[in-house]
């Protein structure tokens, strides 16, 4: 009897796990850090993604956009932005080597911050 109950629980868990997977992609954000809105240094050096008629920035695990004079964020990740995020890290501009006045790189840095 106990075995049957155990099997039923395990089977149920497997089904739930599969359902969860299907719901998660392109909808809920991945688990992780959710910070404040993007700081000025990030906005000034990062290329936005234009979606829904506004510039959006992937920062700290969420998509942020300007809403009038304030920052807003999408509660769940729109599939269009999810697709864009899967294409690669945001383009960022590296104006100078940080922490050292010399060694001007003037290049770009990728990578999600």
């Amino acid at each position: 009897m106990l075995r049957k109950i155990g099997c039923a629980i395990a089977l149920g868990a497997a089904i739930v796990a599969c359902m969860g997977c299907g719901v998660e992609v392109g909808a809920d954000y991945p688990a992780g850090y959710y910070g404040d809105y993007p700081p000025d240094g990030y906005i000034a050096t990062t290329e936005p993604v234009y979606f829904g008629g506004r510039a959006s920035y992937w920062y700290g695990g969420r998509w942020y956009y300007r809403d009038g004079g304030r920052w807003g964020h999408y509660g769940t990740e729109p599939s269009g932005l999810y697709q864009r995020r899967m294409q690669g890290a945001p383009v960022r501009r590296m104006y100078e080597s940080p922490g050292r006045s010399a060694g001007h790189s003037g290049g770009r840095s990728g990578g999600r911050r």
Partner: protein
Amino acid sequence: MASMVCRVVIVATTLLSAGPTTGCGGSSLGTPPPAAATGVVQDDATMGLMEHHRYHHHGGVTLFIAMSLDTLGVSPEQRAAVEKIRADLQARMGPAREREQSLVAILADGLAAGSMDTAKVDAGVALVTAAAAGVHDASVDSLNELHNVLTPPQRAALVDKVESHWAVWQDANAEETGAAKAAGGRLAALTTDLGLTVDQVNKIRAGLGAGPTSVPRLDPQKIAADLQSFGDAFRGEKFDAKALTTASGADASMVGWGAARLAYFVEILSPVLTADQRANFAERLREHATHDPSAQSQGERNP
């Protein structure tokens, strides 16, 4: 048999349960790094931008606009037009940039020699300021063309970026004295770069605290008001840069203050540094003088 079936189910459950972390985790490509690595306050790109804003003031708000184009994100159809406008803006800022280069070269020479020609420095600051006062008027057509080329969301994004540059510029050029002691300021950066001792830092801070007599006062509220005017106008359907009548004054004010403040900073530092530190700092100033990140190619996406 029941036991066998149960084992199979349990194994299958284990494998399937791993799905969300592997299969769904296909979406884990986008899993963000832990908080410490997300650059909540200042990451390398931000630090690099601050370093840039400490030594490059020549175009004022127009420079912020030109820099904002670097990461605005334009379509392939827009790219040629935007690149031309960016090049035009750079050309309009050219005279101010050249004078700023000359000033920094004067400062570097004085630093290396251990003797600053203050009359020459003051004249250099005045020349930069005068040149900056003409940047906006010279850029009116380019700014109007830029407004025509961009979509409304791009215009709004550009305004956001310009305002962000202004915020970073203020942090980078914050006063080196006071309670906060400008953690992101010039002295904080050079303390590490030049290996300044605590005694040297204290002497420099005391010198800076005495207050420059020749540095014009900067009114951040006025600059902010000018940026607000620009932003409101640029977001609109109709835009005429010529109508921004206070922009030239704002540029001259910001650029003049930045140039004078840099000169004063170097003059205070010079007698406190060792010969090696002076040579090191002078070399770095020369590199800043010739540095032009806007001349770099645009548009590549990093892996």
